[in-house]
């Protein structure tokens, strides 16, 4: 009995003498840092119901800002990441200006990518119960009024954030809390087989001259590092890649997707690295390992090519944003466009032995309202209260001219677009399958509609009316995003195929764009390969006849009975040279439709703005296929 009692005494004494780490709350607070789990490397999950070995097309947006981004919250966006995913799945949420936003067709995947730069801070400043709301720069944040007042407050805060005192508001607790919510929300809304979410964020580096170097970091799995790497850590993307490489070792697989090269003033696709050194093999490997994709189109314009760079491409003037991001300073075309980057990549390969610009293509939006707005006729632009109506967007005149002859608001929002979408070919709608398609570069981008493009290259490809076209194309050829080795005595064959968006306009033409090196010079050519309405491609000009499709600018109605549901071609390059380093990518175009600015004008009962394009041809771009020459 006494021995028993003593045992109890000793045990209870030792128990009461332990420190407080047995408090589960304290334990968890030290475990709040998310660690890599082994789930990613475990046994493969069961296939979901829609699994298709020959791959389905899925559409999504990998560039979405919510209340946690410093430049979304301040313009009225109070939508959370959860609201964003609810919207993407087809739910209705409210714009800060009070109207409803809802997709007609839900998206297949969505990635909330808030700015790592002061993540969550401005929102917390507006919380009167928070500590940071007492800081002098937070004054007025909880009672912000209209767009002009918000714009002024934004400029004030931005100036503070660029000042030496910025650290006073850099509270890691706020950032961590926001980041954990972003991660948990993505995981909660992820629904394998039905809807895929991606954990991610935006890294906002700029070059020394202010040129845009922003890229979005997208994680493959349900885990992510403790904190995102932001420009406060380094403004050099090469440091971001080092961090991503190190994290990959720790089990956090990710990739980064640059955007708005158009606004980079030549910095996004420079021919030297950040410090001015030539682009060597190590640079190319690291860049391609971490950045297999580029966002070619979004609200702030399209970066395929520029009329100055492609004078022989009649459609090169598509959604050109000529300015550097968030400014009226012009952005130089050289080094700012994807097609030229592909060409420079070939050039670099010839000169330095490596091609750092062999990325695949996607589109996305960059919405700061949490809501993708890619329909021209249902467009609310992207910056909350700043561009929530036609007058603010510069498509509808001001009530009174601001100066003689200046009838429109002084803004660059009029150069923006109802764009774009990321398209992938993946076996099923899951994170693993879609991320694999990113890595494989079997991806395409669209300017906001759901055209689907297929692209293959190889030798002995099937004919386009073959019943097992896709099976044989995969067997005998390579898909978009891949490399094909040239073969002496053989000519590569291509299959290009586009299917229309059933809820947008019919297709007008299918093109293959070729870029190659010839005697040390970069060359490019646009080939029409399939025409609608029974047209044939002219063998000399490589052009389809104009099918005459038009838009009525009074009501945006389009010509009936013109255009195709699908366009397909077996194609061989008439100017093929087996010794040339070359790439080819598909561009497909719809018949013209009204641009968002024309819809705005019609609804306001005014004429479309004369110096803006009244119509556009929605289009899709596939990732390229590179032909490695025989040497």
């Amino acid at each position, binding site marked *: 009995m*006494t021995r028993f*009692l*003593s045992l109890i*005494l*000793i045990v209870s*004494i030792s128990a009461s*003498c332990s420190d407080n780490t047995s408090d589960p*709350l304290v334990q*968890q*607070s030290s475990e*709040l840092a998310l660690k890599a789990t082994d789930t990613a490397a475990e046994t493969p999950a069961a296939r979901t*119901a829609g699994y298709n070995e020959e791959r389905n*097309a899925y559409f999504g947006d990998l560039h979405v800002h919510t209340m946690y981004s410093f430049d979304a919250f301040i313009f009225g966006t109070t939508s959370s990441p*959860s609201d964003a995913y609810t919207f993407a799945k*087809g739910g209705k949420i409210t714009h800060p200006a009070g109207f409803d936003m809802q997709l*007609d*067709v*839900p998206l297949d995947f969505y990635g909330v990518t808030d700015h790592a730069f002061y993540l969550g801070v401005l929102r917390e400043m507006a919380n009167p*119960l*928070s*500590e940071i709301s*007492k800081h002098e720069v937070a004054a007025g944040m909880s009672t912000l009024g209209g767009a002009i007042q918000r714009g002024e407050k934004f400029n004030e805060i931005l100036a503070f954030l660029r000042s030496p005192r910025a650290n006073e508001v850099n509270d890691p*607790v706020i950032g961590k*809390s926001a980041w*954990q919510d972003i991660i948990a929300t993505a*995981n*909660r809304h992820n*629904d394998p087989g039905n809807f895929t979410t991606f954990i991610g964020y935006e890294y906002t580096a700029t070059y020394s001259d202010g040129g845009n170097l922003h890229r979005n970091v997208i994680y493959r799995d349900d885990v992510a*590092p*403790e*904190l995102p*790497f932001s420009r406060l*850590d*380094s403004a050099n993307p090469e*440091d*971001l890649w*080092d*961090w991503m490489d*190190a994290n990959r070792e720790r089990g956090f697989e990710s990739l980064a997707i640059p955007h708005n090269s158009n606004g980079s003033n030549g910095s996004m696709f420079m021919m030297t690295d950040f410090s001015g050194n030539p682009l060597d093999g190590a640079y190319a490997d690291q860049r391609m390992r971490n950045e297999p994709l580029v966002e070619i189109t979004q609200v702030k314009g399209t970066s395929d090519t520029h009329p100055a760079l492609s004078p022989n491409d009649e459609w090169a003037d598509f959604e050109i944003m000529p300015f550097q991001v968030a400014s009226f300073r012009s952005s130089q075309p050289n080094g700012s466009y994807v097609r030229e980057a592909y060409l420079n990549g070939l050039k670099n390969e010839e000169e330095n032995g490596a091609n750092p610009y062999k990325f695949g293509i996607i589109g996305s939006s960059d919405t700061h309202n949490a809501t993708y707005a890619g329909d021209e006729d249902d467009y609310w632009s992207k910056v909350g209260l700043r561009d929530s109506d036609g007058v603010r967007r510069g498509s509808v005149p001001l009530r009174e001219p601001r100066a003689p002859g200046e009838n429109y608001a002084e803004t660059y929002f009029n150069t923006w677009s109802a764009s774009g979408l990321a398209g992938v070919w993946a076996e099923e709608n899951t994170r693993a399958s879609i991320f694999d398609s990113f890595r494989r570069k079997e991806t395409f981008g669209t300017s906001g509609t*759901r055209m*689907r493009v*297929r692209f293959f290259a190889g030798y002995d490809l099937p004919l386009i*009316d*073959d*019943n097992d*076209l896709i099976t044989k194309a995969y067997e005998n050829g390579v898909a978009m995003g891949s490399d094909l080795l040239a073969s002496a005595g053989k000519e590569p064959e291509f299959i290009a*195929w586009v*299917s*229309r968006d*059933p*809820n947008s306009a*019919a297709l007008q033409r299918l093109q293959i764009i070729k870029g190659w090196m010839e005697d040390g010079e970069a060359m490019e050519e646009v080939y029409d390969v399939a025409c609608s309405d029974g047209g044939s491609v002219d063998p000399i000009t490589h052009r389809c006849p104009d099918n005459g499709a038009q838009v009525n600018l009074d009501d945006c109605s389009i010509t009936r009975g013109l255009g195709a*549901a*699908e366009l397909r071609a077996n194609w061989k390059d008439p100017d093929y040279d087996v010794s040339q380093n070359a790439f080819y990518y598909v561009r497909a175009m719809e018949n013209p439709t009204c641009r968002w600015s024309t819809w705005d004008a019609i609804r306001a009962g005014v004429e479309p703005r004369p110096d803006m394009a009244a119509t556009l041809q929605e289009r899709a771009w596939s990732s390229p296929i590179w032909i490695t020459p025989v040497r």
Partner: protein
Amino acid sequence: MGRLVTQPLVWFVIISLSIFGLDNLIPEGRDEIFVSAAQKDRIALLWKTQTGKDASIQELDSLVKNWIEEEVLFRQALRLGLDQDDSIVRRRLVQKLGFIAEAQMGPEPEYAELESYYSQNILDYTLPLRYSFRQLYFLDQATANAQVSQAKLGNNISSSGTTSMLNDSYAFRSELDIDATFGSGFSLKLNGLPVGEWQGPIESSFGYHLIYLTSIHAEEAAPLKSVLDSVGSDYQQFQKLNARQRYVDALLDDYLIRYEEL
């Protein structure tokens, strides 16, 4: 009880307790700051997270030195009672606890709780009307008409039609899915079609289709077992929204609140 008092073991325990208690009461001589390996690791990790690089030996030494100086100041501040009556410190600690409370996972919910949450939110787990069907695609109406006539005569038409990016068959597609694939309004045209025979031509944005409905799946609530994971995470989210309040309520239970009588 008497027997206990005579046991040496009991006295041993009482004495050791006293020594332990006295030890805690008597102030120590030189304070110790113990820099554990875990603390060093934490400092190095923070550096790495912020800079992306491993700290060099000199950098780490300097960081640890900074931390030690901070620790000394921190302890002195506590000794001077600087944390008392400081509303900023108070608010900050409350805020930290608030974040932690929100992040805290509640206990594993009971099945009964999940059942109840599921029933109250049954619409979230209700599958809409869905169709499973085969389709054939034709560019012109005449060919489609000819083929459906052939089908009604009992002939096999499954290899007719034009290839397209559309599938030969679709399973469990909601009306929203179908409109996304074939164009808005197409799903309405499937309404009322009989199952098990080729019907059409039905027009879409692509052209003309013959549709063979293999089954119609009525709107139904997904059984709890099949959506248990979703219900679980939705329930936890619902709980999290009330987490701070429940945490405070749970803590309040441990206190007796008294007000000064005036």
